[in-house]
């Protein structure tokens, strides 16, 4: 382990040590279009997971069903920026599929579906 990696795992370094350890020094997501509600889901063709970190694998397990980025962050209990970095690793590997759009204002049909859905709960 290099001196720098040692530093990441040094408990005395403060509350950011764990997030830094998780992202392995990467600082910003490669997939910039990850918003709070962006839906992510584990691919059915996920690659060999042995090289993944514990956190990546945790995300893969969570995303067996579609979830929002915000939900993944909440269940993993890490800040959003950290989960975005981790998710973008998995997206790049093709292990996670993602909704191909930034949040859009819903059209009439979508609003009608939401209206019916909320009435039905």
């Amino acid at each position, binding site marked *: 382990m290099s001196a720098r990696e040692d530093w990441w795992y040094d408990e005395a370094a403060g509350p*950011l040590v764990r997030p830094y350890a998780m992202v392995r020094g990467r600082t910003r997501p490669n997939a910039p279009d990850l918003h*709070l509600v962006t839906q992510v889901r584990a691919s059915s063709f996920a690659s060999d997971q042995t090289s993944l970190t514990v956190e990546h694998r945790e995300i893969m397990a969570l995303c067996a069903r579609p979830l929002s980025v915000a939900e993944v962050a909440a269940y993993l209990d890490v800040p959003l*920026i950290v989960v975005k970095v981790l998710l973008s690793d998995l997206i790049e590997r093709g292990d996670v599929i993602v909704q191909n759009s930034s949040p859009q204002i819903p059209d*009439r049909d979508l609003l009608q579906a*939401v209206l019916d*859905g909320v*009435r039905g709960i």
Partner: protein
Amino acid sequence: MVFVGSDGQLTVPTAVKIVIAGGFGTGKTTMVGSVSEIPPLKTEELLTEAGVHVDDLAGIEGKDTTTVALDFGRITINTKVVLYLFGTPGQNRFWFMWDELATGAIGAVVLVDTRRLDSSFPSIDFFEHRGIPFVVAVNCFDGAQLYTVDEVRHALDLDDGIPVVLCDARDRESSKAVLVGLIQHSMNRLEAAV
């Protein structure tokens, strides 16, 4: 990056969101919880000590950071659509989060406590200025329904087109009715715009 095609492969639902806004203690978290199918979740944004949003972890190691939490709930509409309800963060200074929350939202519920009407002014201003559909829901804390809907409308200087309703944020049916009113208001706005 693998995106979802239209070829019937694995799909992800379309996500929509509604923002629950209003001053501190007006019942935002309570309303999210009363309609959500899961206990409200918390997600955290990282901030520098000065309160600046961190969207890049570079250069902040060793610096003091803090977080601001958003609470949210979920309603699965059907297999293709999921609705998220986001309570706005307690302090209005986190405007960067409001922007992300408001982008693409169906609209907003601005909760009002008539004992402290002014605490909901900034929320109303925000949605008015962005042209985001919103309804005002007066949360009727026990015995605190001091004003009529018309008096609240007047006190908040609201346009006639903005629905104002009374609610009890702890009550599921009451909160549902507020959401239904907001979605209908958004649909009307959409139709008026065509």
